[in-house]
């Protein structure tokens, strides 16, 4: 996909605050890159984007982008974004979140935003760990993993973000990895343009904690893992290895009413004085 202007990161970031604080090799920066590129290719007006995030390494992303940005409290970003979006439906609402932020403390806001099908794009930057606080397990770590709060390995099952988002009512659900940076970008573009609640899970390595604790090697090696351990939806490889993680667009439903639009109808009724 080509656009008029040539893409330059520096047109989309607050250069003053670079280099950013993420560790060397942190996957979150790759998500940032994919997102900026998606915004560029969609030719969105930077004034029309509000990025809302919570707390976590991932959440620091909002400070770096040159959009309106709202760095809030841990786990509640989608609730803040719901206020932004319902108050000003013409703005694009993008909410990047860590796996802990989105699905541990923030799990309820996640399923409720999905249920309402409000037009927000949720990006789950899934490194399967609490990076910012130094390597505790998250609801996406899965069993048998090492973490500072699981010295004897984890016994907690993980959520499947895709399944949960689907069940809760999200009308667009996709998954990719930072190894597949271009694919991630494409899904982000679709998600952003989708009318309704969209979820893009992007597997993103934390070499500092998850990688080190679980002996998964350096950033590049972890990314090789994403290549090896994921396949496109429905790939034949699943027959022999059902544990492979599927990538792709799992749901894309454009028929379900979007929340702000439904609200506009309430306004119409109310203005006619009917209750």
């Amino acid at each position: 996909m080509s656009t008029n202007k040539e893409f330059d990161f520096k047109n989309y970031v607050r250069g003053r605050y670079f280099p950013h604080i993420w560790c060397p090799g942190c996957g979150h920066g790759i998500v940032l890159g994919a997102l900026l590129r998606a915004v560029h290719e969609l030719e969105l007006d930077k004034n029309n984007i509000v990025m809302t995030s919570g707390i976590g390494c991932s959440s620091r992303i909002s400070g770096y982008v040159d959009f309106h940005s709202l760095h809030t409290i841990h786990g509640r970003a989608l609730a803040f974004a719901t206020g932004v979006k319902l108050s000003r439906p013409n703005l694009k609402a993008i909410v990047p979140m860590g796996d802990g932020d989105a699905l541990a403390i923030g799990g309820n806001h996640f399923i409720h935003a999905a249920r309402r099908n409000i037009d927000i794009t949720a990006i789950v930057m899934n490194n399967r760990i609490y990076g910012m606080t130094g390597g505790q397990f998250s609801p996406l770590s899965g069993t048998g993993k090492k973490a500072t709060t699981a010295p004897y390995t984890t016994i907690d099952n993980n959520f499947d973000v895709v399944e949960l988002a689907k069940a809760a009512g999200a009308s667009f659900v996709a998954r990719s990895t930072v190894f597949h940076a271009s694919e991630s970008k494409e899904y982000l573009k679709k998600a952003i343009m989708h009318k309704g609640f969209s979820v893009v899970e992007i597997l993103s390595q934390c070499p500092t904690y998850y990688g080190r604790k679980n002996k998964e090697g350096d950033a590049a090696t972890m990314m090789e893992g994403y290549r090896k351990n994921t396949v496109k939806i429905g790939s034949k490889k699943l027959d022999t290895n059902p544990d492979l993680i599927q990538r792709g667009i799992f749901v894309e439903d454009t028929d379900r009413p979007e929340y702000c639009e439904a609200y506009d109808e309430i306004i119409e009724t109310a203005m006619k004085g009917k209750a």
Partner: protein
Amino acid sequence: MTNTSNIRFIQGNEACVEGALYAGINFFAGYPITPSTEIAEHLAQRLPAIGGKFIQMEDEIASMAAIIGASLTGSKVMTATSGPGFSLKQEALGYACMAEIPCVIANVQRGGPSTGNPTHVSQGDVNQARWGTHGDHSIVALTASNHQDVFKMTVEAFNIAETYRTPVVLLFDEVIGHMREKLEIPERGELPVVDRLRTSVPKGVDYHPYLPREDGRLPMSDFGAEHRYNVTGLFHDMWGFPNNDPQVVSDLLRHLVDKIENNWENICFYKEHWLDDADYVLISYGSSARSAKHIARNRRKRGMKIGVLELQTIWPFPTEIVREKCANAKAVMVVEMNMGQVVTQVKSAVDHPEKVFLANRIDGQLISPTDIKTTLRMIQGKGV
């Protein structure tokens, strides 16, 4: 017969809704809880009719978050709750302090702690309103004892929130919230309605969202407008970007406190009744103040020099006013429905704390004129 078109006979919670509408509210997010629910219910009806937005969120935390988000787009926002919900909102309320977001939070008080006595009156959240969120900060909390004042204080709450970019707590109570009485809705223009300052910095010129002007105020720019900036709950620089340089930290913290404390006079609302020559000063607020006024009116008729200082601003605590009004009192009695929250403030405010007494009730029943009379007799050494 009076002109009835502006007269309502409604609950205090609805008077609060009328005040909010007068002040220009256009976004409300909430989660039901007794005895505040009617605020949400009426706004669910009224807001869409003026093109405003009402949303019932999944909990109180989300409600507080949603109004902050909406405020940043330029809406005038409010949420309403009671005890347990107010506890849940504390984290996000602190965020609003730190990020300087105008918003109004009504807490219609019920009996606590915990689930407590949900359908009965209390004034037990006074100190929580001040100290419920972690860390140093300052807060504004207003209250009222009748529906006309509920209306007025609600308007003022929005005005203060918008002026000082701060959360403002409306500390009502179950009796006020649920009781019905007259409200006469003021004409447009009769009460001041303040909108937030918006920046005059033109597009393309550097706008510093967190650089206070000399008067301590910070002009805002709505999300969606031409200035793109960052908002955070971390200590931050003038662009709103996280920064923990010691100087930045202490400057910001002082600014957050000073902008409220130094403006206390502009935020300070109170009423006085028969105070001029009062030997006995009753200090009260909210529904308790009705009983205080009742007994004072009654005793005055019998010649007792008694008056009432009715607080409408609870935080920042009007120390100066209290000291001044109590200067000549033989005895001061604080009338409240808790184990003594405002009385502690009064004691530190006055020159003679030993002359300060408490008439209270903590059993879920509205404190009555008789209760106060009893305490009064005891103070006078007359026994019960």
